[in-house]
């Protein structure tokens, strides 16, 4: 019997029988609605009456109208907080933990990862309290005599988006740390030891030995956190409702608002598809670069 790698047995038509239930559900509730989304994006439709064909008009509007485009700009701000900061923080924490072989590292890993499993709605409610005018942050500021800096963090357009972003940092750091820990665990200890003998300090050791080993994990961390940043919805819906003003409107929130509150389904669906395209391009792009580097 000849076997190709990974597939024992002869070609089997029974395979389709095993696949059928999954493909049926996937087709009806994923593939079909996605095609419907593309179709709906070509119409101006209020969700009730008959829609009007507008071709690519919705796409032109979303990409050119500053008000429609603003949520995508807000996403870029969130990327800094959801992606860049957790990756840096996660790397520092993973570096510390894997280097010193600390006691209790299991405890730290569990606790720092914990925010990742708490429902976002709960996270949002907790942080709303922290950012409230009478909340922990203002308490802490006045405790050190900085009352002047205290403010309603979610009530001011210039701070609300960053305040939401910082929650993303809080959620994402543990995930990045765990990914990097897994990557660092694969580095042979002798490499560190020889770096020590060469007289490299902790930071130089990490940059020379640890970081190069983390290429793959870095790509994964970037992909996951970027997608999380672009898809932020629960936090905004619960913490700010897009406000104050329009300052925290982000794409996912706009999908919901245009489609179900404003009666402009075409805009909502178009934003959803552009978001999907951005996620696909980023995911594929990051993985291409990571794999290219590995070769």
């Amino acid at each position, binding site marked *: 019997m000849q076997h*190709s790698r*990974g597939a*024992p*047995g002869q*070609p089997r038509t029974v*395979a*389709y029988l*095993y696949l059928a*239930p*999954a493909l049926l*559900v*996937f087709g*009806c*509730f*994923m593939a079909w*609605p996605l095609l419907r*989304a593309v179709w*709906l994006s070509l119409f101006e439709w209020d*969700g009730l009456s008959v829609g009007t064909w507008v071709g690519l008009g919705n796409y032109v509007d979303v990409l050119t109208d500053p008000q429609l485009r603003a949520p995508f700009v807000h996403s870029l701000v969130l990327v800094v907080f959801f992606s860049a900061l957790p990756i840096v923080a996660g790397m*520092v*924490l993973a570096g510390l933990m894997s280097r*010193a072989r*600390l006691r209790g590292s299991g405890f*730290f890993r569990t*606790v*720092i990862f*914990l*925010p990742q*499993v*708490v*429902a*976002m*709605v*709960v996270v949002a*409610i*907790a942080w*709303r*309290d*922290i950012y409230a005018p009478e909340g922990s942050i203002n308490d802490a500021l006045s405790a050190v005599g900085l009352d002047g800096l205290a403010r309603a963090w979610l009530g001011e357009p210039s701070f609300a988006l960053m305040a939401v972003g910082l929650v993303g940092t*809080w959620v994402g750091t*543990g995930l990045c740390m765990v990914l990097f820990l897994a990557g660092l665990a694969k580095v042979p200890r002798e490499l*560190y*030891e020889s770096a*020590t003998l060469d007289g490299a300090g902790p930071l130089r050791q990490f940059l020379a030995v640890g970081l190069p080993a983390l290429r*793959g994990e870095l790509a*994964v961390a970037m992909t*996951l956190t970027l997608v999380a940043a672009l898809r932020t*919805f*629960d936090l905004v*819906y*619960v913490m700010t409702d897009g406000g104050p003003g329009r300052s925290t409107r982000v*794409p996912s929130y706009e999908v*919901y608002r245009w*489609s179900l509150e404003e009666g402009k*389904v075409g805009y*909502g669906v178009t934003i959803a598809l552009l*978001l*999907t395209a951005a*996620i696909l391009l980023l*995911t594929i792009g990051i993985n291409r670069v990571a794999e290219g580097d590995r070769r």
Partner: protein
Amino acid sequence: MTSTAERAASYLVLGLAAVLALYPMLLILVTALSPDQVGASGGLHVENFGTAWEQGNFGTYVKNSVLVSAAVVLLSAALASLAGYAFGTMQFRGSSVLFYLLLLGLMVPSEAVVIPLYYDLKSLNLTDSYFSLVFPQVAQSLAFGTFWMRAYFRSASREVVEAARVDGAGHGRIFWSILLPMGRPALMTMVLLVFMWTWNEFLLPLVMITDESLRTAPLGLSNFQGQYTSGTALLAAGAVLVALPVVVVFLFTQRHFIRGMVEGAVKG
């Protein structure tokens, strides 16, 4: 190889990170145990959980979440195992095309499908039902699940399968009596992740459900907080009830959880 000073500094940084990670959660827990009414006596007010469960309707919300999560987990595990078995152990025309189609589902965000689904299901009178919560989430979990189970079936010992085949076992028995029992760890990891995603899902119930008696835990919590402007003890107690099941499951099975999130993502 590391000095005492360096260890102390490491502990300091890690300790600070741990405190920051825990603080918001402890704040909610402390608020949940504080008096609900101004002027009530001090001490721990454990009865807030009972009040939230009964009067805050969190009992209903949690029940809905349990039902929906159980259905999504069972269906996803069954369908993903069957599909993963086919992809992992059989040759057939179109296998790679179908596999890449499923992989696409791993990247498509639910935002893109939830709006068309809402209008389609509404025209079929299927919104405001468990159906509208279960099947879209099964579809969303299938991409990861199939991918994950395929990896397991591919890695499963070839000798065991060949030996069983020589003994006359068909593809059904090899799947059900041999490979699936051996794959319990892989299946377990997938079940835990799908449970967490389903329990915490917010956008889909928000769009699909208007009937209060069908709200899931996160949706019920969000509506509850919309009725009160500031953080009350009952809101916090509700938040604890919503978060607790996943947190407890995570604490007992964290090796599975973390393995799934790390390996699943790396393979993806």
